């Protein structure tokens, strides 16, 4: 089962400055050697040491120079795929990259299937399954900033979290087992309470992971954005505008109730997980109250609040409620309906914030289309917009980008379980932990707990492609006194 040599364009298919063609496999060096020349027109690729980079030319087999290139050589196993790998850094541009790729094909490589480099990295033992899957996600991620989060998962945020949980479980198993094998030194007195607390904690963590994987709902990384405001200020128009303008709705999932609408929107460089809420106003209406309560809850979990104010009407008590509700949240206030006569100006917004939060907020005196509110310890900006006329949307987009780069907005780095395989394993682990809890409630002898703890441990291992191995015995010896 020798592996053949594969090649693909590794950078985005866009007209950027530099492009990279990656070639990997047993014959990577041999193949590229056929089409590479150094400045003295020599064929010397094979002589280069691993992890070096060289200047030269890419030539067709008849000698025609195709492009000026830099070439890096990474020999097995010290490459991403753990195979011999050559990367050709060429001039960017879709046509140039495709041309070079076709030259590489002619020299003997074949086009890699989507994700094949990663598959090889996994098969060669370079990365574990969840990392491999994150890379697959990268390949499918259209949005350029989603890459950052996918990269995070690649570094192992899922693996990390699962590994931590497994370690916690393993410790408990090891403790129980040590006590069984060495009752002289390890006492199980009072252990059940400790395990009970630990189980609750683990179940809680599993639930959180599971939540993010709810019933086939695609929960991609993105900025959790919530639109709030009084009724009829233009919230829904804003959502429609953002969604419609970009024509890039990834999903359109109705919320749990009709008064909450969620959409995933590609806006500029970002994915926004948008939630539109019911208009908030002081009311005695039961149904509306429920809607308001939901908006409050959702706002609590938001990364970014878009607070829409109708500039053509005065502010009132409901606005104060909203300001209180979103206190502490990164917020962009859209002072909307700038196409109409201005009744509420920036100063009145500042006044009502000062009054509501009992502080003194102001904006810098320099006139600007985007104003940052100073005097509170979280980020609030004001932008003037006319959603109806589509005014201010570029401003909004660049503002979000800026907030992100200045670290005011965190891209959602929570661990998401988006994979069915992961999800099943997670719920298996969850079920096993439930059994542990039941055993504890029934006062079963301690040795019964480890049966289900072991299952939970194995299920979690399944996610990151690790099986139950020698870990237990080693854990026992490393952590506990064993004596006969």
């Amino acid at each position: 089962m020798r592996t053949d040599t594969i090649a693909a364009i590794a950078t985005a298919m866009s007209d950027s400055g530099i492009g990279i063609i990656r070639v990997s496999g047993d014959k990577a060096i041999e193949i590229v050697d056929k089409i590479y020349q150094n400045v003295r027109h020599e064929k010397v690729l094979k002589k280069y040491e691993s992890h070096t980079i060289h200047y030269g030319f890419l030539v067709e087999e008849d000698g025609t120079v195709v492009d000026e290139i830099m070439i890096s050589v990474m020999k097995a196993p010290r490459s991403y795929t753990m195979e011999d790998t050559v990367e050709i850094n060429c001039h960017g541009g879709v046509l140039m990259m495709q041309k070079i790729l076709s030259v590489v094909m002619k020299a003997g490589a074949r086009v890699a299937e989507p994700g094949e480099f990663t598959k090889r990295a996994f098969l060669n033992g370079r990365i574990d399954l969840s990392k491999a899957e994150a890379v697959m996600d990268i390949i499918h991620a259209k949005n350029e900033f989603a890459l950052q989060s996918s990269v995070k998962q690649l570094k192992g945020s899922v693996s990390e979290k699962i590994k931590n949980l497994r370690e916690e479980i393993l410790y408990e198993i090891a403790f129980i087992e040590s006590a069984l094998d060495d009752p002289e030194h390890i006492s199980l007195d009072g252990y059940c309470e400790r395990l009970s607390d630990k189980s609750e904690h683990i179940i809680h963590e599993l639930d959180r992971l599971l939540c993010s994987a709810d019933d086939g709902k695609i929960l991609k990384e993105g900025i959790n954005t919530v639109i709030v405001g009084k009724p009829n200020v233009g919230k829904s128009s804003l959502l429609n505008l953002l969604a419609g303008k970009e024509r890039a709705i990834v999903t359109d999932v109705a919320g749990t109730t009709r008064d909450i609408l969620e959409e995933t929107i590609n806006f500029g460089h970002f994915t926004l997980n948008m939630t539109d809420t019911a208009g908030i106003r002081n009311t005695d209406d039961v149904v509306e109250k429920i809607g308001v309560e939901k908006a409050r809850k959702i706002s609590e979990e938001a990364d970014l609040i878009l607070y829409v104010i109708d500039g053509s009407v005065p502010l009132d008590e409901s606005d104060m409620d909203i300001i209180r509700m979103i206190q502490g949240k990164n917020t962009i206030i859209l002072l909307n309906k700038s196409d109409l006569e201005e009744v509420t100006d920036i100063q009145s917004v500042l006044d009502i914030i000062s009054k509501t939060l009992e502080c003194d907020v102001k904006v810098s005196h320099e006139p600007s289309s985007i104003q940052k509110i100073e005097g509170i310890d979280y980020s609030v900006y004001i932008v003037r917009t006319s959603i109806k006329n589509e005014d201010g949307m570029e401003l909004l987009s660049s503002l979000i980008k800026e907030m992100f780069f200045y670290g005011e907005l965190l891209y959602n780095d929570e661990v998401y379980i988006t994979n069915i395989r992961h999800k099943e394993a997670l719920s298996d682990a969850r079920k096993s932990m439930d059994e542990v809890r039941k055993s504890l409630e029934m006062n079963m002898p301690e040795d019964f707990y480890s049966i289900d703890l072991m299952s939970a441990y194995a299920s979690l291992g399944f996610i990151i492609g690790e099986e139950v191995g020698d870990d237990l015995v080693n854990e026992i010896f490393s952590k506990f006194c064993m004596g006969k």
Partner: protein
Amino acid sequence: MINLKEKVDVCVVGAGHAGCEAALACARLGLETVIFTVSIDSVALMPCNPNIGGTSKGHLVREIDALGGEMGKNIDKTFIQSKMLNKSKGPAVHSLRAQADKADYSREMRKVLENQEHLTLKQAEVCEIIAEDYEGQDFSGKRVVGIKTFTGTVYECQAVILCTGTYLKARCLCGEAITYTGPNGLQPANHLTDSLKELGVEMHRFKTGTPARMDKRSIDFGKMEEQFGDEKVIPFSFTTDSEDVQIDQVSCWLTYTNEKTHDIIRNNLDRSPIYAGIIEGTGPRYCPSIEDKVVKFADKERHQVFIEPEGLHTNEMYVGGMSSSLPEDVQLAMYRTVPGLEHCKIVRNAYAIEYDCIDSRQLYPSLEFKNIKGLFSGGQFNGSSGYEEAAAQGLIAGINASMSIYGRDPLILDRSQAYIGVLIDDLVTKENREPYRMMTSRAEYRLLLRQDNADLRLRQIGYEVGLVSKDLYEACLFKKKQIEKEVDRLKNTVIGAARENQDFLIFHGSASLKTAATLSELMCRPELSYEMLSAIDPMREVLPDDVIEQVEIEIKYEGYIERQLKQVEHYKKMEKKKIPADIDYNDIGSLRLEARQKLSVYRPISVGQASRISGVSPADISVLLVYLEHYHKKTL
């Protein structure tokens, strides 16, 4: 020199616990067998602790018995105290342990060997394994054709089973005093190692130790806690009549070390051969010397010390928990700090012993050497420790040597069938840097591998092998039926909410019934047992205790047993994927180099076994699985 030449079927080297089981198995299966020992008076010697069984080891003894081995029967004849350990815990970890009269144990086993048909006991040191080159259909390498003793006699045979224990190039250390002897000052075996190395066998050096023995008359038992045996003794063997083991038992005694003890040890560590670096061998982590305990667990203020009789006809007492290789003067001072031992007199000093053993990954799970056909091994020679571990391997090696001679498939127990399966799989698969001891934690499916159901698990296998009689096998089948029938009845017998039933439940502190329930549902309540329920179960037949025990466990722990069975199902998937013997791992380009090397050297028989080899990653296993798919398609 004219040498004698004899011709037999099997030669067993060593008559310890492994050798005895191996030789008996072969002879009982009808093969002419010779068992060699350096001292006929030391057959089935217990050179360390005076007991058989204990946590997880008790399971091994039960399994040996179910398969038709001798250890359980022999301890039933010679025990002087017996106890079921861990009774407060779940049934999976209940473990039987019996104190043995060491001399009696040895004598009784010798009697069994001496009277076994087809078996000859021979005092001689085996010096050489004779092998020839061999080209077979599925194997090319060496094949055993005989052995040679120190006196030059050659025994031609078809299989050799090595059970040399701690005797190979043995060396005993007591502080600065080093003697080149086997345990108890017995003659070591100094030549066999070289012969094995010549055959390409890779040798290791391990170390173990034993505490001092004391004169009973010098011990003040008034300062110790008396440890009694169980009121009702349960025999080890499934064939022993329970009435026969209700004997007068002797007591053991519990005392503790203290800071004074630990100070003496700490102040003299430089005189310990281990800490002075004189000992090369690796000792067991789980059975540390008292020096190790004091150093490694410095925060412990005291350690348990068990004083156990070595037999009924001796004053020697074993000092459990205080094995040591410190010099004699330090030993005496240290022991005398322990309450009750202030005036103790040492009969035999504690010592450490070093010996040659093998890297057991050179063996197949049948315990046959991968590179030498017909050569089998068991016991401490394979890098294990403990009498029970040794006996278990000896039995399997004996069975498989016989199976190989008869051209039958080897008996390989897997991890879901028996502790013996776990033991051997661990030995032949995992890297083992210290003497291997059985522990409950090593068995993943231990709720299924209980000591109480060893017969239900293994009787049939013993019968198929030929070591269990038809009568015993049929008795076991009958027991199974009784259990099934009774479980079935309990599941289908409905108890209504009648007055007397409610009164019964309330009386036993159990919630009263709102709707009808089955008897089995009631049995699942922790506060109710099968026995209690007899009051509301008039239709019940009288059943033997061992049947009731099984019924109770099956019903009470049904959910757990089911879940464990699921785990087994998952495990078996990988075990069932066999790897062809002629596979060339160098053909599989995607395997990492380390994995390729390890797999080539250790040649696992299944993907499951491959996955347990250290250095073989889950990714390697995926590659292997993919390759095997292709391989099978190709060969079809």
